[in-house]
């Protein structure tokens, strides 16, 4: 069994990347909180993680023919989805500032959690290499 960084680090490197992307999308929503006609967007983190997990375990549905349909949801490929607004606004903007800010903060905390996991993976590897 080959030892690779991909195997050693598990899903956490992908999680960290997805968190970074999501932070970017949410920051863009917040920057456009006052732009008329702007539609708030987000990524489906869970669907992305499920897909990544399926790919890693090798249990995902294989597409061996061009006519095979993609069985995953549109959010799973990391596509940006539009948010459903809770209340309409006259200028067509769908950014709910408080909700977006809460999501951004939460995303930052979850980023820290993923980081912690990744960091302990690295310190585990370092311990194994130095043999202490």
């Amino acid at each position, binding site marked *: 069994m080959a030892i690779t960084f991909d195997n050693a680090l598990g899903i956490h490197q992908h999680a960290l990347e*997805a968190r970074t992307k999501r*932070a970017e999308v949410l*920051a*863009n929503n917040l920057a456009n909180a006052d732009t008329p006609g702007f539609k708030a967007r987000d990524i489906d983190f869970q669907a992305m993680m499920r897909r990544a997990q399926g790919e890693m375990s090798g249990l995902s549905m294989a597409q061996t023919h061009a006519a095979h349909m993609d069985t995953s949801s549109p959010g799973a*490929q990391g596509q940006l989805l539009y948010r459903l607004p809770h209340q309409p606004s006259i200028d067509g903007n769908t950014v709910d500032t408080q909700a977006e800010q809460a999501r951004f903060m939460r995303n930052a905390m979850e980023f820290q959690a993923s980081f912690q996991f990744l960091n302990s993976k690295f*310190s585990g590897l370092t311990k194994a290499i130095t043999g202490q």
Partner: protein
Amino acid sequence: MSLGNIFDIAGSGMTAQSLRLNTTASNIANAETVSSSVEETYRARKPVFAAIQQSVLDSQGSGLGGFGQQAVGAGVRVEAIVESQAELQMRYEPDHPAANEDGYVFYPNVNVVEEMADMMSSSRSFQMNVDVMNTAKSMMQRILTLGQQ
């Protein structure tokens, strides 16, 4: 690293909001600037915001499918500053030095109450962008400590 993009996005938001604050300051300062003709009178100025769409897509995509197929937004920009076309206030003040031959002076169409509300809104949005930038900074600082004991 796309964390760097957050700085650009929040920065564009701060620029746009400070410009909006600038027009508000100008409007309030000129709220009582009278003149003797319609053409010379100050009109309230309003910025028009528009979202920036990223033109260069990263074709590589990330390990999780990535965003290769579509543009992630890249912040906000001020498209134009328009002058309000609302009716000017015409007041009969024959003793005013700027009065025209009929005794009327023209006051700007600045609504001070609206401007104050605008000011609060833009300063809040500015703060929000600063918060976003601070969070992005702490995320980046943590990334730099990856693998350290």
